[in-house]
């Protein structure tokens, strides 16, 4: 299907990566691993970083679709549907949260399939517009289907993560923010590994080929629409899981919140600022921009601090279309994309 020599070149390119970015990544990893100790279990800082990690997973999940060149403005639909699905399942059916979260993932995959059917024929700007419009459907349905979702007031008092008993270990997510932090940390690491695997697998290669030149990709036997749909399903699945985690971490959701433009904008902004065509860039951007917002801009300008997200997005589109991580990797000689012109958003 895909020319084998191109795979070889591609893999060779990855192994040749300069050490600098690996060093940065390792440092970030150690920093995150030791963070609870470093901040002496300061609840506020840990809470911010838990949220930052959750947003990082959103950006990573968004980027599974983003790497194919499509820009989705509608991931809040998946986020909200995941949050609502898991919340309602755990409230009404009494299933364990550990079970409702993957179930929510499958439900959002279904939603992703519907969105895929509608949007897959569209390209570029029209795809983005269609996804933007798509959010309204689950949002208004959730708002109005009072019998199932309890309407626009939202759900209060959702069950948190139940405590885990691993032998003599007893992990209580209810009272310890450190435990929640590590939970989200592990999830983001797993997702990072998966995204890395997907990007280097045949699926990832096909998606990048589609992004570079769809007609040429079709000519070598890549069924562009199936691959794009598959990437959308994967993206929807993990966004749904992140949404479900959000519901059980924050334990309060309402339609305006979880279907808000915020959760559509944020993964896109992080992915574009970090580098859409890199594996770790989106996650790193989340870990830099969100704490920056919460620690510096929020105290300074309580109303309107989110202008930061718009400002970094404008800056990235105009001056750094490959994202800061993509740019750094290009300077060190290795990028996933080989054609510089294609890295334009």
């Amino acid at each position, binding site marked *: 299907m895909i020319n084998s020599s191109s795979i070889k070149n591609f893999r060779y390119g990855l192994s040749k990566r300069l050490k600098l970015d690996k060093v940065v990544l390792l440092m970030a990893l150690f920093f995150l691993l030791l963070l609870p100790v470093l901040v002496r279990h300061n609840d506020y800082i840990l809470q911010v970083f838990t949220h930052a990690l959750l947003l990082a997973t959103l950006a990573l999940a968004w980027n599974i679709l983003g790497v194919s060149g499509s*820009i989705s*403005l509608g991931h809040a639909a998946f986020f909200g549907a995941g949050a609502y699905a898991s919340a309602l399942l755990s409230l009404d059916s009494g299933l364990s949260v550990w079970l409702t979260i993957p179930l929510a993932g499958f439900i959002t995959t279904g939603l992703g399939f519907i969105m895929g059917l*509608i*949007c897959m*024929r*569209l390209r*570029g*700007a*029209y795809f*983005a*517009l*269609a996804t*933007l*419009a*798509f*959010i*309204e*459907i689950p*949002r*208004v349905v959730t*708002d*109005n289907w009072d019998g199932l979702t309890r309407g*626009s007031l939202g759900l209060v008092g959702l069950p948190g993560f139940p405590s885990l008993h691993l032998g003599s270990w007893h992990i209580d997510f209810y009272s310890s923010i450190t435990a929640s932090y590590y939970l989200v940390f592990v999830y983001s690491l797993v997702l990072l590994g998966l995204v890395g695997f997907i990007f280097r697998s045949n699926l990832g290669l096909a998606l990048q080929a589609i992004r570079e030149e769809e007609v040429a990709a079709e000519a070598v036997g890549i069924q562009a629409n199936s691959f794009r749909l598959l990437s959308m399903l994967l993206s929807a699945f993990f966004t749904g899981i992140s949404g479900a985690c959000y519901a059980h971490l924050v334990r309060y959701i309402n339609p305006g919140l979880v279907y*808000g*433009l915020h959760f559509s*904008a944020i993964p*896109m*902004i992080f992915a*574009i600022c970090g580098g859409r065509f890199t594996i770790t860039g989106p996650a790193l951007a989340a870990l830099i921009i969100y704490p920056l917002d919460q620690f510096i801009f929020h105290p300074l*300008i309580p*109303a*309107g*601090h*989110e*202008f930061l*997200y*718009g*400002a*970094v*997005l*404008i800056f990235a*589109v*105009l001056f750094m*279309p490959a994202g800061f991580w993509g740019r750094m990797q290009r300077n060190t000689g290795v990028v996933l994309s080989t054609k510089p012109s294609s890295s*334009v*958003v």
Partner: protein
Amino acid sequence: MWTTVLISGISLGSFYTLIALGFALIFGVTRNFNLAHGELLVLAGYVAYWLWKVCALPFVCTFPIAILVLLLVCLGLQRLFARLSEPLELNSIVLSFGVAIVIQNSMLFLFSGNYRLIRIPSLNQGIRFHGFYMSYGQLTLLLLSLIIIFLLYIIMHRTYLGKALRATIQDKEAAALAGINVAVMGTLAFCLGAVLIGLAGPLYGCIHYLYPSTGREATLLAITITIFAGVGRLSGIILAGWIFGLAESFTVIFCGSSWREMVAAVLLLTLLAFKPHGILGEKL
């Protein structure tokens, strides 16, 4: 009841046409999707509200100042858009999405998140005629929108400038070959768009609560109408606006007002699914 729905639909639809015209003009001439359109509209509404409430200006006097503010903002915006690289349409969506967030948060900072409405009591009275009822608000909305649309029609179809603008909408390169300065046309489109938004914004503040994040609805509406009509077809935009207004009015009557927000989304998705190139226009 039917006549009431019809009247409110047509009056609202004409106003929607007015909202969409600015978007369609900017998109047609420069091929920039301006996702901040709704935010600009709300900004104009806020300017009018502020002048009307705090400075106690008569409502009519708020229009010129709103237009002035919008002209400044739109010219700044145009400078940003001019720096974009290809693919223009997708890049402009991402850029204007960022702009929308910045404007939203600036409005939150300047005007707070409270719901505001320009409440003009006389607009709520109405005329009763052979069993149907029309409020002065609806009448004003209808007449003002139609007058502005008519003026724009004159500009676009009866002046040399309009001819140049239409030529640029049809084919940028051919227009440039014919000696039209395409860059100037782009700036002009933004200026005309700003004037249209500046006229629509204060009216929007009269019929709709203003709060910083309400702009998305108007953006979606403008996009839907523009794609429905195809670019460069004024008559198509009016028709689309009316269909849209009627669809909303009927949805409110039959399904309840909470389903109204879905009308734009469903219409846009249906349009894109079946007619990716617009209904009346050959090519978007």
